[in-house]
């Protein structure tokens, strides 16, 4: 039965179904309702869990790290400045190969202060060694969260489930929650073979010198690459349980015959699909939903882009002084194709700027007839509002 649930509340109930034993969180620039929902479930006795309300995001990640290392399933949620404050701990969690799951309710970074949705926060952790899965809908966020625990624990890698702040987390959507039986059948009891145990004492997080450090990084990289199989498998297995899938690593949707592709991460996909469907006169597009940004699924992406002349990579973050973040990676991956599409790279919807239905026609027209890739731009910026010297 479909329930009308706010994204955060749906995620709180989903996380609870995954039976975390320790949840730690801090309410940096508005926390989502996810941890509030979990705290209530714990307070009401519906979830046997230590809810640790810490004094900073740095400690939220650290408590989760300690709990997972000590043999408990652990979870945290964060966003924006919180992700940045956690940064050194996030690198440490993945470097120690500690499996845990975090929801990132994607939001902009300061300064200037802006609490609304874009994806600069998770993109800033691109190289942290975390798996990053982006969700297009709240239903996907629910299903991806369950999958994330299995992926994390099987791969011994942390997973960041990226859910657009406000657009998804604060929005009501009819969705299906799995049953406890479905989740219990899918997700085995937590175990971590490198855990801290007085009966088998081991040292975690030791000093590793130049003679071994490259091998540690190599092993981490290989584990991330191998995680692609597990991400696809988890999605397929979960689909067999609940009848819904989230698109594995990357999913091609829309018009399969279209010569124009639009690649997105997260919830903007729905807006673009609605826009195309609302006007039959508009050029048709194939939508490439990049679900797994890390690991980056180059091979799956090439298959998804087969037959395209143009690919617009539309992202909600940027690397000032260079351009897009996802765009250049996509271009590098596609260059091995016999006939790679021309890749045009735009950012839009920064700091919560509304992505309206006319975005579709705007980006499609911007690349129409282009012989060469268009120059990167924040396509919905209005430089006219700026002083002459800043345009």
């Amino acid at each position, binding site marked *: 039965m479909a329930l009308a649930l706010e994204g955060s509340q749906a995620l709180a109930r989903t996380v609870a179904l995954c039976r975390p034993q320790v949840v730690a969180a801090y309410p940096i620039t508005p926390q989502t309702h996810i941890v509030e929902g979990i705290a209530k479930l714990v307070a009401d006795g519906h979830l046997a869990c230590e809810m640790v309300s810490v004094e900073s995001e740095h400690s939220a990640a*650290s408590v989760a790290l*300690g709990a997972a290392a000590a043999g408990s399933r652990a979870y945290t949620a964060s966003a924006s400045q919180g992700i940045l404050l956690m940064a050194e701990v996030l690198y440490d969690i993945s470097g120690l190969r500690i499996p845990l799951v975090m929801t990132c309710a994607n939001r902009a970074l300061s300064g200037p202060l802006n609490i609304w949705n874009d994806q600069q926060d998770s993109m800033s952790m691109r190289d942290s060694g975390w798996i990053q899965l982006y969700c297009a809908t709240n239903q996907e966020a629910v299903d991806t969260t369950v999958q994330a625990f299995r992926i994390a624990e099987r791969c011994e890698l942390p997973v960041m489930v990226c859910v657009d702040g406000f657009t998804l987390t604060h929005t009501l959507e009819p969705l299906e929650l799995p049953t406890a039986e479905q989740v219990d059948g899918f997700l085995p009891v937590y175990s971590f073979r490198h855990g801290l145990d007085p009966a088998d004492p081991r040292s*975690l997080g030791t000093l590793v010198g130049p003679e071994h450090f490259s091998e540690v990084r190599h092993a981490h990289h290989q584990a991330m690459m191998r995680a692609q199989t597990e991400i696809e498998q988890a999605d397929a297995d979960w689909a067999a349980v609940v009848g819904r899938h989230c698109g594995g690593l990357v999913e091609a949707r829309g018009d399969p015959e279209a010569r124009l592709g639009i690649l997105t991460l997260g919830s903007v996909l729905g807006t673009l699909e609605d826009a195309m469907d609302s006007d039959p006169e508009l050029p048709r597009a194939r939508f490439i939903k990049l679900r797994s940004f890390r690991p980056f699924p180059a091979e799956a992406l090439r298959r998804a882009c087969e037959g395209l002349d143009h690919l617009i990579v539309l992202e909600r973050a940027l690397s000032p002084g260079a351009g897009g973040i996802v765009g250049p990676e996509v271009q590098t991956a596609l260059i091995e194709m016999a006939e790679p599409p021309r890749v045009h790279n735009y950012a839009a919807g920064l700091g919560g700027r509304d992505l309206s239905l006319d975005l579709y026609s705007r980006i499609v027209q911007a690349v129409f007839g282009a012989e060469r890739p268009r120059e990167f731009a924040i396509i919905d910026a209005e430089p006219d509002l700026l002083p002459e010297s800043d345009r």
Partner: protein
Amino acid sequence: MNEQPLHDLDTLRARQPRFRGLESGHRACQGCGEALAARLTTEAAGPDVVVANATGCLEVFTTPWPQSAWRLPWIHSVFGNTAAVAAGMEAALKQQGRATQVLAFAGDGGTFDIGFQALSGMMERGHDVLFVCFDNEAYMNTGVQRSGSTPHAAMTTTSPPGELRMGKRHMKKDILSIIAAHHIPYAATASVAYPSDLRKKVRRAMDTEGASFLQIHSPCPLGWGHDGAKTIEVARLAVQTGLFPVIEMERGELIGTLPIREPRPVSDYLKLQNRFRHLFASEYRARKELEHLQAIANRNIERFELRGVGPETYDTEGADTVHRGGDRWA
């Protein structure tokens, strides 16, 4: 004659009287106070513990991969999050219904400075964790930079004496008063010069439910510039001069002190260490700073009522610990 080889480690280990959490063979400097403090702490704590260790000398000299000197489950994450990692381990063990105890180890940097927020949070939430600060009064692992714990007037690489300065301008942070303000069940200071006192305090803290804190004064021959063979002497003089008061607190209230029978002048302690060498120059500023440090020691003796009677008893089992009311816990 059938002599045992001197370096048969198995034989030596078999002869050790008690559990050792930190094995020999690690890479600490000769005379390292921190290594001794960590060994005494883990001996007293026993094997059923998990340890979270901050970045610092202790982490570095015990675990150059693939070696480890620890016989305990041990984790190092980053510099400033040790109390939070320990809190997470405690939450996990509690949820699992296990009785294993949690220790957190940090230097003074990881306690007074970068780790302070996480420590305060852990204590405020009352996690059942013993946080041990191995206080060697500067950032030794990174090459002797001043910390919030560095004593007034001490020379470090970032508080050098010169034409305009006489070493560190600021005071050593009164960490124990800040800890006391958290009203945790048990907090104490100890010194490597008084090992049985130290061990008892570890056991006492382990028996306490809730957060407990132990600050162990741990001389660093390299950073303090003293002879490695004199670590214990230096540590004892810090106590006997009143510069490092050895005290115990329950819920933030003072309950016991290690008394000083015959207070020694601070210069006896300072002159053994290069970090205070500039205070012995024949100039006005040096004399004023020596007076200043003596005044700090006098103030400690007065504040904690450290003055005891009778001869110095050094470190017999508890004989030198005075308790103000309540039962002896030893």
